[in-house]
């Protein structure tokens, strides 16, 4: 069923047990992003240590896709350099825009490739990007 390509087991797992959810005290910056058409919200705390993403913590309400994606994003980007993080982020965005034509680079995206199927559902792409865009915004502000 087409649905299974959207709701990969990995996604449902992250949804049920999200990583780095719950806002940590330590942060350089806090950003709040939402998706007004469906009401999903993410608040993200980012702590950088020089060029390194030291800590990401987040909280939010939203669908399985948006919550799982925020979970995968934080797991993936913590510990990476700013440059690496943005490279991964760009790869994820590209995957989302692939209209089902790409499977994603597993070396780069790890669990993130589970979201490949989302790209076939235009209405859900925004969900998958919510947490990522929050990170992009937060890190750009800290690095500015």
């Amino acid at each position, binding site marked *: 069923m087409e649905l299974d390509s959207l*709701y990969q087991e990995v996604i*449902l797992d992250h949804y049920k047990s999200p990583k780095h959810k719950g806002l940590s005290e330590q942060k350089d910056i806090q950003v709040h992003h939402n998706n007004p058409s*469906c*009401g999903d919200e993410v608040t993200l705390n980012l702590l950088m240590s020089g060029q390194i993403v030291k800590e990401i913590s987040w909280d939010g309400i*939203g*669908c*399985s*896709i948006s919550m799982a994606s925020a979970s995968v994003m934080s797991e993936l980007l913590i510990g990476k350099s700013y440059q690496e993080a943005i490279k991964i982020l760009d790869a994820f965005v590209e995957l989302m825009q692939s209209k089902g034509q790409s499977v994603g680079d597993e070396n780069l995206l790890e669990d993130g490739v589970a979201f490949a199927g989302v790209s076939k559902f235009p209405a859900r792409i925004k969900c998958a990007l919510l947490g990522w865009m929050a990170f992009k915004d937060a890190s750009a502000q800290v690095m500015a």
Partner: protein
Amino acid sequence: MSVDLSKYKKDFPILHRKVRGDNPLIYLDNGATSQKPESVIAAESNFYRTINSAVHRGAHLLAEEASQAYESARENLANFIGAKTDEVIFTKSATESLNMIAYSLGNPDSKFNVSAGDEIVVSEMEHHANLIPWQQLAKRSGAKLRWFSITKDGRIDTSNIDTLINKKTKVVAITHQSNVFGTIVPLTEITKAAHAVGAVVVLDACQSAPHFAVDVKKLDVDFLAFSGHKALGPTGVGILWGRTELLEKLEPALFGGSMVDSVSMEGATWAKAPRKFEAGVPNMAQAVGLSAAIDYLNMVGMEKIAGHEADLTKQLLDGISKISGVDVIGPLDMKDRGGVVSFTVDGVHPHDVGQVLDQYGIAVRTGHHCAWPLMRKLNLVGTTRASFHLYNDSSDITALLAAIEQVKIYFKVGK
């Protein structure tokens, strides 16, 4: 007492579509927009094919015929809501209708103008289209926005109506039927209170006029708005109705051609209603299409449509009550209730519910339904909403209930 409208389904071309594989389309998103019968599509096309030209402007045959078609559409709409012909204004949508009336009521040159010290009353379950224009009017004018609270089962709490609607109240803007709960508001109580203090009542009839008989005189309201696209009509056309005496006293909100009495470089004076409120070359083909939609609704019969939707609503409410972990948001009984059912599935976000239903060919709406303050109040992230029109049938409800069970299985609810 079940009503059989099955013979009409064939008139709606889109309902023959297959979606997501080989599933027949089950369209239960009528609260957002309705589908169109062939006669409506043809009315719009035929306008372009045979008489298209600018109404009220040309000295030629096409202009005569287009004007005639456009003004007949107005008459037809007026009859549909029990109004006088010249009280019916074609807008682009209910949203525009409501914004227009808010601008007009706030114009200092309107005899009836809202200003600092005045109060505007809405409810907590308004659609954004009947909330934000009033917030903005309050902001522009210095008037105060106040609102009816909502009870737990999704009805308007009128217990404080005597203080809420008071001598300062100039406008009460209220929905006729909630687009989230399907509840119909206690309008008589509200219009009485409003008129007793000299306030006008603006009715958002988006979810009522397309589904049951609405008569502006019987309802005793002062302004009324609805969208054509939810009433089997084309997109891009809505209705604003206002009492003659009030329209006379109001400044228009949109300015341009065909709405003037005279114009100089320094200023302009206005034609009479409805012209005054219809600046520019109007949405003629859409008005004519909406008129065809009204013909279609009249042909089926508004009573029958309301009865049919009640049957479907009851079937769905009964069905959901038998599924554990699935809750109806809004009244469980059939009293003062239209064909809109919101529900939640434990632990599954509405967006995910909608996605699974979509996989079975079932189109519903998920989210906050443009009633965000209401969702906050209910502490909900959103709901899944099924809403009906005349072409839905009992098998659609059966399919929906079965698919809800699949949602539970898919997301392992209760496991």
